């Protein structure tokens, strides 16, 4: 599945790096605990789904070589987050759904978890 298809599946809104929607994604991790995410470090080319909105979600994504962050439940995302993601080529998608439903839709569409 690529990031464009992911965006459609969750009816999301892309906040940056629109030029990278054709990037293939192989794995996904949903968490509000960043050290949990960091423990799945083999998840390169992965997606991070989170309900958090602070710059450390982007730093965490950078460290694990994630290519996309999905922020659940339409939150206000400030410029520091978007700019940091943009600088690092990470697509940020705002999802109108909860973390549960965002994850469920992607799972149903065939996306599977990180091998951790």
């Amino acid at each position, binding site marked *: 599945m690529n990031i464009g298809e992911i965006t459609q599946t969750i009816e999301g809104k892309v906040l940056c790096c629109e030029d990278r929607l054709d990037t293939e994604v192989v794995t996904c991790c949903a968490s509000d605990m960043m*050290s949990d995410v960091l423990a799945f470090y083999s998840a390169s080319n992965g997606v991070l789904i989170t309900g958090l909105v602070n710059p450390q979600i982007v*730093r965490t994504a950078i460290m694990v*070589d994630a290519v996309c962050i999905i922020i659940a439940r339409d939150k206000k995302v400030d410029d520091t987050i978007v700019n940091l993601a943009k600088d690092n080529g990470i697509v940020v998608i705002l999802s109108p759904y909860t973390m549960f439903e965002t994850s469920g839709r992607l799972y149903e569409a065939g996306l599977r978890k990180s091998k951790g």
Partner: protein
Amino acid sequence: MSESIHLVFNVDGNNFASAGTASEEVKSKLKMIGISSADIRRVAIAMYEGEINMVIHAGGGEAIVDIFLDRIEILLADHGKGIEDIEQAMQPGWSTAPDDIRALGFGAGMGLPNMKKYTDEFRIDSTVGVGTNVYMTIKFN
């Protein structure tokens, strides 16, 4: 690369938003000199966890990084409150992080175990009231 690269970073303890910049810089430096992405990821995660720890538990500190042909050595030094019981701190799930830190996505008590897991050598020296030194070595495969 014939000689080692020596880098020193000041890690600001009053700015949660900027925590991780040192790790980010080290990551791009390693990428530039052609280290494998698997090794870079181990370095990035271990150093980032340590950097975050200095910011949320110790009021900031210094990161001293030496990159050699076959390995990277990282020293994270702070003058924070220190760790009373290192063995306990190393237990997965042990955390003294307050609720406001948890709300930001940290405080699972997984940082130190992750750091140990991703490094080839890992040592903590800490004195209560004086500070903490974390030494990490990662060998390049």
